[in-house]
């Protein structure tokens, strides 16, 4: 009996109908929180002591980076669930999560570059964190490319889930090794991003933004998964009915 919900979760139809009601809430809450956090951080929060107003970009940069990272785990774990319990819905979540993660990683890199120009005097610096982010971006692109390469959706799902799992095991190793490389071969002068030194007056809006991004992520993931469900179940009666209703 305890497994019943789990099996129902595997039914795309049940999931689709259940989540219809959540969408407006998630959308409303995430947009409101993002607006609140942005206004707090940009207008009311203090400017950073050394960098001035340019440091305010952390309110996008940090949440994007956090979610890019967490998104990989969301993707890999849904892939694993799909492989182990042969759950089609889980594969759909996995497929939906890959491009979102790639976009978030790109956003983190882009805001990092914009931030780097006034701070370090260069758009691009080979710093440990940036390098790890690039590697993460490549990992995401690999998953998306593999998904696109296979004609058969079923094979594409399973194959890219295996890759995502291998990636999940390796991400900590890649991060550690890039860290090692950076501290060994680069002078450690650019330590402006140390998180420990952040002042609460900037920390609270940042935390709020991270929370907002999490909910935003859930909202977008849900939206994309639902599109994926409709695409894959398009020949079934219940999808036909939804389409007929408009």
């Amino acid at each position, binding site marked *: 009996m305890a497994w019943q919900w789990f099996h129902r979760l595997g039914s795309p139809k049940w999931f689709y109908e259940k989540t219809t009601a959540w969408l407006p809430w998630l959308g409303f809450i995430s947009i409101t929180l993002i607006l609140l956090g942005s206004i707090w951080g940009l207008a009311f929060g203090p400017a950073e002591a050394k960098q001035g107003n340019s440091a305010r970009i952390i309110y996008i940069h940090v949440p994007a980076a956090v979610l890019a990272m967490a998104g990989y785990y969301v993707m890999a774990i849904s892939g694993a669930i799909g492989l182990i319990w042969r759950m089609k819905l889980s594969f759909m979540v996995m497929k939906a999560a890959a491009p979102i993660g790639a976009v978030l990683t790109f956003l983190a890199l882009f805001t990092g570059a914009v931030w780097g120009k006034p701070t370090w005097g260069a758009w691009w610096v080979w710093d440990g964190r940036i390098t790890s982010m690039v*590697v993460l971006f*490549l*990992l995401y*692109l*690999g*998953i998306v*490319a*593999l998904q696109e*390469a*296979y004609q*058969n959706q*079923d*094979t594409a799902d*399973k*194959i890219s889930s*295996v*890759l995502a*799992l*291998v*990636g999940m*095991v*390796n991400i900590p*190793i*890649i991060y*550690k*090794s*890039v860290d*090692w*490389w950076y501290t*060994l*071969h680069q002078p450690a002068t650019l330590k402006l991003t140390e998180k420990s030194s952040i002042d609460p007056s900037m920390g609270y809006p940042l935390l709020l933004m991270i929370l907002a991004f999490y909910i935003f992520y859930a909202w977008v993931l849900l939206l994309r998964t639902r599109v994926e469900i409709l695409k894959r179940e398009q020949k079934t009666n219940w999808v036909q009915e939804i389409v007929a209703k408009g």
Partner: protein
Amino acid sequence: MMSTDTPSLRRAFWASLRRELLLSYRHKGDLANPLIFFLMVVVFTPLGISEEPRMLARIAPGMLWVIALLATLLSLDGLFRSDYDDGALEQMVLSPQPLACLVLTKVFAHWLLTGVPLTLLAPVLGVMLQLPEGGYGILFLSLLLGTGSLSLIGAIGAALTVGLRKGGLLLSLIIMPFYVPVLIFGSGAVKNAIEGFPVNAELAILTAMLLAWSVMAPFAIAGGLKISVRA
């Protein structure tokens, strides 16, 4: 009518290894290709950057490692493709022996026939790139350990793209992020050796990575191959 000869993994291992070696002996040309590639890009380096000895000496450890890595990558596309096309892979999947062990033999053969020759060639090419005195031994050792990981990781990519007709470029794309740690510690060891720093930590990590991949990669490879065969 059933025989008392029970199937044994050891026999399967030797039969697979024997076949791999025979096959590559019959296609000797394929063996040389990664080595020629290695040589060619090394020739390109002074042409594209500078022939100035001090400059070359500085970039030699990194260049040698990057090129060896790319050469390995290029040799991987065909690893499972011909077995997939002619049905031999189905017979491997059907074997009562664990597929993970059978593919490990294939990867071992690949390392023996690609990684080891690249490692042997690297010091010679190091001379061409003005690699400083102290780097040769560690270059050899780090490549010997590192190419093992490269073959194992690359085989995962080969297994995941075996069902695609043109998988070569995609294979590189999905696998290269996993090569990052191997490259960092491999070329790091050579650089340290040249500058006279200890290299124990790097070599220990390269060994640890090789061991970890030897345990993990065969399962990912076997999983990928089974999915491809069942498609």
